[in-house]
C-alpha cells in the first residue's frame, strides 16, 4: 500500500486505518501541526529500538538524539500543512541510537484528523540503508567485471601477438593461437564454476583434448587443492604449453611414449602450503633445451616465477622432459 492509498483509507475510516497502520512494515508516525508525535506504529518502535513513552508527545526534532532536527526537513514539512504539498523520499543520513548509521527516506502528506478535523502530518520512513549498500556493491561488481573483460581481451591480444608467425602458414598460426585461446577458456571455465578452481579439475580440463582413449597419459593427485582464478589461468596456460610441446617434439610425438602428471600439496619449512606438480615424459625421444627460447618456454617460466611466484625446473632427460613446478597455494 502506498502513501496515497493509505491517506484515502485514513480519511474514510478511523478504526480500519489504525489496524492497517499497525500492520505496516515501514515505520509511520503522525504529527500534529507543531510536529509533535500523536501516534506511531509498531514498525517505528521496532526500527528505531524505541518505546511509546519516549515517542508520543515528543517533537520530531527531539526524537532519538535529534537526528530528525534538520532545518531543511523542517522547512519542507512546514510547506506540507498549509499548501497540501507532499515530501517524497527525503534522504536523512544519520547515526541513530541503538541502530547506528542509517539512510532513511522520509515521505510526508497532510491529512485531517479523523476525530477532530485537525490538520496533521503523516510521515512514513523507509530504511534504505541495505538497499543503497546493495546498489553500491552492485556498481562495484559491475565495474570489476568490466575491468576483467578488458583484461581478458588484453590477454587474448597478447597471445595473438606472441604466437609464432615466422616460417608458418596461416592455418598453423590459427591452430596454435586457438590452442592457447581454448586452454585459456577452459581454465577460466574451471574457475567460473566455483569461486576457487580445483587443481585436479583444472588438469583434466586443460588436458582433455589429449586424454581421449589413450592410456599414454596418467593423472595422479590426492584430495582437493583450491587455486585462485588467476593461479588457475596461469597453470592452465603452462600445462597447455607443456602438452603441445610433448605432442610436437616430446614423448607424445612417438608411439609408446608416456606422460605422467602428478601433483600434491605439502608444507615448506615455514609451514606455508606449497603445490608441487611433476610433469614427467618418458619413452620419447631425447629431450633437449630449445635452441632459441621460444614463447612457449618463456611463458612456462614467466607464469611460474612471476605469476605463481614459484619455481620451474625443467630437466631434459634422455627419454623425455621432466618439469617440476612448485608454487605457494
Amino acid at each position: 500500500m502506498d502513501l496515497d492509498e493509505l491517506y484515502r483509507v485514513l480519511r474514510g475510516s478511523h478504526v480500519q486505518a489504525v489496524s492497517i497502520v499497525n500492520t505496516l512494515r515501514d515505520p509511520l508516525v503522525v504529527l500534529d501541526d507543531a510536529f509533535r508525535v500523536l501516534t506511531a506504529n509498531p514498525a517505528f518502535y521496532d526500527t528505531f529500538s524505541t518505546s511509546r513513552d519516549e515517542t508520543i508527545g515528543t517533537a520530531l526534532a527531539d526524537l532519538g538524539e535529534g537526528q530528525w532536527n534538520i532545518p531543511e526537513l523542517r522547512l519542507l514539512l512546514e510547506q506540507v500543512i498549509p499548501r497540501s504539498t507532499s515530501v517524497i523520499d527525503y534522504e536523512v543520513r544519520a547515526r541513530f541510537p541503538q541502530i547506528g548509521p542509517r539512510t532513511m527516506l522520509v515521505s510526508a502528506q497532510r491529512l485531517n484528523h479523523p476525530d477532530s478535523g485537525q490538520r496533521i502530518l503523516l510521515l512514513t520512513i523507509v530504511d534504505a540503508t541495505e538497499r543503497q549498500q546493495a546498489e553500491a556493491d552492485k556498481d562495484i561488481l559491475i565495474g570489476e567485471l568490466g575491468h576483467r573483460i578488458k583484461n581478458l581481451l588484453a590477454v587474448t591480444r597478447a597471445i595473438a601477438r606472441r604466437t609464432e608467425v615466422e616460417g608458418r602458414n596461416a592455418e598453423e598460426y590459427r591452430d596454435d593461437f586457438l590452442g592457447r585461446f581454448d586452454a585459456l577458456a577452459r581454465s577460466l571455465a574451471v574457475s567460473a564454476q566455483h569461486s576457487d578452481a580445483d587443481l585436479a579439475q583444472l588438469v583434466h580440463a586443460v588436458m582433455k583434448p589429449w586424454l581421449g582413449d589413450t592410456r599414454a597419459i596418467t593423472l595422479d593427485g590426492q584430495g582437493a587443492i583450491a587455486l585462485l582464478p588467476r593461479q588457475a589461468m596461469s597453470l592452465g596456460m603452462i600445462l597447455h604449453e607443456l602438452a603441445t610441446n610433448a605432442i610436437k617434439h616430446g614423448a607424445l610425438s612417438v608411439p609408446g611414449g608416456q606422460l605422467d602428471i602428478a601433483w600434491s600439496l605439502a608444507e615448506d619449512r615455514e609451514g606455508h602450503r606449497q603445490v608441487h606438480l611433476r610433469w614427467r615424459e618418458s619413452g620419447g625421444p631425447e629431450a633437449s633445451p630449445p635452441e632459441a627460447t621460444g614463447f612457449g618456454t618463456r611463458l612456462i617460466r614467466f607464469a611460474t616465477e612471476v605469476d605463481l611466484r614459484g619455481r620451474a625446473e625443467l630437466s631434459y632427460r634422455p627419454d623425455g622432459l621432466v618439469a617440476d613446478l612448485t608454487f605457494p597455494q
Partner: protein
Amino acid sequence: MMIALDVQMMLEDNGYAVLGPVGSVEGALRLLDDTRPDAAVLDGNLRGQPVEPVARRLRGLGVPFVLSSAYDNATFADHEALAGVENVRKPVTEARLMVALEKALS
C-alpha cells in the same frame, strides 16, 4: 601474466634490459631497494593493490616512468605521485610504449 610477458618482450625487442617484471607492490619496492632502473612501466593496480607507493618511490629515486593501465587517468587523479604521468593504456601497442618511454627518458 600474458600482458606483462608481452610488454617484457616488446621492451627486449627494442634493446631494453628488463629487470622485472614484478607482480606486486611489495615485490616492486623490494626490487627498488637494490637496483635503480633507468625507467619503469607501471600497471595502475598490482593484484588489487594501487601502484602509488611504487610511483612515489620512483619519484624519490628520480626514475622516470610511464603508466599502462586499463583504467582512465581520472582514476589516478587523487594520487599525487601519478599525476601528470603518461598512461599508454592497456593493451599497449609497441609503438606507443616506445615513444612514451623515450619521452620519459629524455
